[in-house]
């Protein structure tokens, strides 16, 4: 029931949105250029005020950003997914909408090489400044430290 309401909402908000079901929550895939507008509407109109998990997954052909959102009032949860080009991953930052995204985006930036446009302070957070490559990608290899999947 709740899922159906959310689905109707998303279809009206973003005609290009596609849905995946079967998981615990509704998963919505949205196009990268429209993400910022959708994010603003989600917090003002549907009150999704708690961004509790931000991460990136490397599917070898493309990268996917995954945002888990929850409303603290209603416990409604939605998962937003954004497919990115693996050679030039770029998506708008949401750190001005949910402050917690600032650190999580920095982590995705250094581990996967995703560029967050408009991020206030996009620098390496965990890795040393001179580190080369994106260690969480599937094809990353480091012969010296014997990292290989």
């Amino acid at each position, binding site marked *: 029931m709740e899922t159906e309401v959310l689905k109707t909402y998303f279809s009206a908000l973003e005609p290009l949105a596609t849905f995946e079901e*079967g*998981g*615990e929550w509704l*998963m919505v895939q949205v196009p990268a250029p429209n993400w910022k507008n959708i994010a603003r509407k989600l*917090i003002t109109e549907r009150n999704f*005020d*708690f*961004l*509790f*998990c931000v*991460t990136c*997954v*490397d599917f070898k052909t493309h990268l996917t950003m*995954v945002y*888990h959102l929850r409303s*603290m009032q209603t*416990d409604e949860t939605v*998962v937003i997914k954004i497919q990115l080009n693996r050679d030039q991953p770029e998506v708008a930052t949401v750190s*001005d909408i*949910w*402050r*917690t995204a*600032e*650190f*999580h985006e920095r982590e995705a930036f250094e581990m996967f090489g995703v560029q967050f446009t408009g991020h*206030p*302070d*996009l*620098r390496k*957070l*965990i*890795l*040393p400044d001179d580190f080369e490559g994106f*260690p*969480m990608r599937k094809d990353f290899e480091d012969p010296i430290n014997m*990292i290989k*999947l």
Partner: protein
Amino acid sequence: MYSETTIVTPEASQQPLLEGQLVINVGPQHPATHGVLHLVITLEGETIIKIEPHLGYIHRSIEKMSESLTYRQFIYVTSRMDYLSAHINNLACAMCVEKGMQLEVPERAQVIRIIMSELTRIASHELWIGAMAMDLGAFTPFFYTFRERETINDIMEQTCGARLTMNYMVPGGVMYDLHPEFVARVKSFVAQFKSKVSELEDLVTDNIIFRNRTVGVGVLSKEDAISYGCTGPVARASGVDGDIRKRFPYSGYEKLEFEQCIDTAGDSFARYIVRIREMYQSIHIIEQLIDAIPEGDFQAKTKAVIKLPKGEFYTRVETARGELGVYIVSEGATTPYRIKYRSPGFSNLSALNHMAKGSKIGDLMATMGTLDLVIPDIDR
């Protein structure tokens, strides 16, 4: 939604310091960071202008490591994340695997898991109170809290075989049955805790020096706590009712009677008092269960090789620090395709700059201490 904070543009962060400003480094080795955390602090006089955390001194890339370990193995690497709530980390991972397998956990195992989790929570809070009081200059509470913590560690050692990284959870239950003396020892611990914790409260809670250093220091508003993704006692001290045990009960917490400890002041003292009250609630939970551990299996029967179906699974638990989320992307193989640990410390730390800005450098220890940062949990 959140109060306005100035946004640091890339150009601004490279700007030279203004006259009268000073940059100091706290850490990586500093007695008050309890681990290798490096903070670069810009000061004007004694007032904090900006705090930049530099992480990664003990980054082991547990997420990448987990991608090459099987579903039975990866659980035990997470003990090394938040080593003070090792049990609860293991529980989150075991629950995520169980969710993927759609496995029913025997009732006895669930009760054992809750008792162990609550004992871990008490041990973690005890250590935190001792360490935090020491940061603020009080040495005695450290010995008081470690006396109780030691008793818990002994109980753990007897049943799990280890004192800190217990590795007691397996998908489908727990690894061994309880030690025959377990119930009696937990009962004697409960009695000991109840009589001794008042000593600690006399020493710290009503101490005028402690109050002066913590009341009104490092205030975090409710909106900011949500926006920064804070969870656990940090968020609850700001009035966010986000206890996972209450809102999304797991492993049988829904059958228990306990209170979600909430304060609205949002300052360092509120974070302290929330943790103290949480320890009483944990004792209350243990008392409800210790005489009613059901008989039966302590482990469900599972296949030797676990394979999760293709899909995504997310579980969350309430550790001593807040919401720990485990997000598994499975491609149907024997190892996870991708694992993300949403660690509570990482999000709580991101609020530090906002909380400490504008206060004096001396107050930073109270603010940072009450966030209860465990560095391996942040770095992962």
